[in-house]
């Protein structure tokens, strides 16, 4: 349906459109990060494109890829009734260079989406008017949706009561024994090992 949008992008931006595909009718263009804002401006302002609605903006962490972080933008044109998905990839393994231009100036609704991606994934949107955490608290360290954020790491704002203080056991018990139900435990993404709630490494 919106393959002509992809066609227009390819002809106008050339090599900055790294690849395109239309899997199951979802027209997708992978964009060079440096061209992110130009492509978005074109899609928003060109009368043939007129993407006037920002549907979604999110981030994805692919720890095995380089660049590692993917930013995904979904657009829809109410006037032309076509939609497109834009992707770009930024940041190396240590999230250096994890930056992309903000599109808040084009679609004001992108403001909180970009704050969310910054909060949970760690992408810095240059030119964003108010880039700070939106879901987690300011004291939080790190970005919890990165695959290497430890699954059992919590950062309490209120220090937990000790068992001596409470006078009762506070440990959370696994609802099943080790040989029943589903396995309760943690897979480590990096090492591939599995840790059961009792702390034993089952691998």
């Amino acid at each position: 349906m919106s393959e002509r949008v992809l066609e227009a992008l390819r002809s106008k931006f050339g090599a900055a459109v790294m690849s395109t595909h239309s899997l199951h009718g979802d027209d997708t263009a992978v964009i060079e990060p440096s061209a992110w804002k130009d492509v978005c401006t074109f899609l928003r302002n060109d009368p043939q494109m007129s993407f006037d609605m920002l549907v979604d903006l999110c981030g994805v962490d692919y720890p095995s890829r380089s660049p590692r972080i993917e930013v995904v933008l979904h657009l829809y044109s109410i006037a032309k009734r076509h939609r497109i998905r834009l992707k770009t990839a930024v940041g190396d393994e240590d999230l250096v260079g994890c930056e992309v231009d903000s599109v808040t100036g084009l679609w004001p609704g992108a403001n909180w989406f970009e704050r969310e991606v910054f909060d949970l994934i760690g992408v810095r949107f240059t030119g964003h008017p108010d880039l700070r955490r939106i879901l987690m608290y300011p004291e939080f360290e790190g970005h919890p949706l990165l695959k290497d954020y430890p699954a059992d790491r919590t950062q309490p704002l209120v220090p937990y009561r000790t068992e001596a203080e409470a006078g009762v056991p506070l440990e959370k018990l696994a609802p099943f024994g080790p040989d029943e139900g589903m396995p309760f435990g943690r897979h480590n993404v990096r090492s591939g090992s599995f840790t059961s709630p009792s702390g034993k490494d089952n691998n």
Partner: protein
Amino acid sequence: MGELRHVTLDPAEGSGFATTKLNELLGWARKWSLFKYPFVTACCGMEFMALTSPRFDGTARFGAEAPRFSPRQSDLLWVVGTISQRQAPVLRRVYEQMMEPKWVLAFGTCASCGGFYDNYTTVPGIDKIIPCDVYVPGCPPRPEAVIDGLMLLQDKIARGDRTPGVVKPREDPAPGLVQLRRNKGVSA
């Protein structure tokens, strides 16, 4: 109930007196006048509404109907729903603002132990930050279970007992419906 030993009543006079211990009288008075502070954060709130509405009438019957939206005027803190790490200071502060004597009821699995939110964002049970008197597990708990919890709390108040209590299911609602792979050596 604390034992109110009825000693004498003269019908002609229309008056009489009863004897009891002061602690028991206080406990009896407190357990029937629990002013609640509903700290409602999540889906359990719907079940809380069902509990307090006429079909179950789960609070007015026990003298715990009147809500007070100032912690300074309430004695029972209902923690209904998931408590995130970001909300924890608020809950702690609400608890600290309440006047003694005060009690806390954890409504639902999330408030009791964090439930399945075993991650960076959720407090694994409100007892990690404030003392808790009664835990009512369930996702959400049936109103009957909450009424059990409230009666358990009343019992504790009357006895002056501050050890935490858990509402246990009275019976397995559907034996055999859910089969755990318990010690059966199931091949996957």
